[in-house]
């Protein structure tokens, strides 16, 4: 299994500012992902965080809005840039472990005023 921690667990931010969310895994993993869960809705994949190269974004998500770093096999960050109230969501980090199971972090609850 993989244990994932995220920081911060929650934050309240002002419109126009940016927030960087950290994801730390207790073991080295090849595949790491960022998801978003808007209030009362299901999860949507934002991007795949690639170690040593640029992240791969899903349709509807762009690097300028959600820059991602992946400096090593246990850590990644997601930045939500120039925030608006529509960015209020839970942001979740996810990894695929060697036994083909996908694990999710506890999430970061973001509220934009």
């Amino acid at each position, binding site marked *: 299994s993989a244990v*994932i921690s995220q920081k911060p667990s929650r934050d309240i931010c002002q419109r126009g500012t940016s927030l960087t969310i950290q994801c730390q895994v207790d073991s080295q993993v090849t*595949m*790491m*992902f960022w998801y978003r869960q808007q209030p009362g809705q*299901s*999860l*949507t*994949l934002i991007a*795949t965080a690639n170690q040593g190269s640029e992240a791969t974004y*899903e349709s509807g998500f762009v690097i300028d809005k959600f820059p991602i770093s992946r400096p090593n096999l246990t850590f990644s960050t997601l930045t939500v840039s120039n925030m608006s109230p529509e960015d209020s969501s*839970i942001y*979740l980090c*996810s*990894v*695929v472990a060697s036994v*083909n*199971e*996908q*694990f*999710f*972090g*506890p*999430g970061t*609850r973001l509220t934009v005023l």
Partner: protein
Amino acid sequence: LAKTTQPISMDSYEGQEVNITCSHNNIATNDYITWYQQFPSQGPRFIIQGYKTKVTNEVASLFIPADRKSSTLSLPRVSLSDTAVYYCLVGDVLGTNAGKSTFGDGTTLTVKP
């Protein structure tokens, strides 16, 4: 990535067996079926995964018919703490799309005393 259809909600009582069915008519040959449980303010938690026939672990059973176009998650003797949202996911956990999970709307299970 295969689309899934689940009931939006289900009610049950403590001690009963609960069966949640998921339809995935366009499942591909390499796709596995995975079920997750999500409590409020937490990330999804892996419950069970299977490819065909029946899989059982300490918390649930997964029944998959021969055509694999549907699957049923069975929770024996539910308790109040099983109240959560349950997601059925279909995808190639071993291939290049591993981790790129498409979450459906999920089934909100409410267990009553």
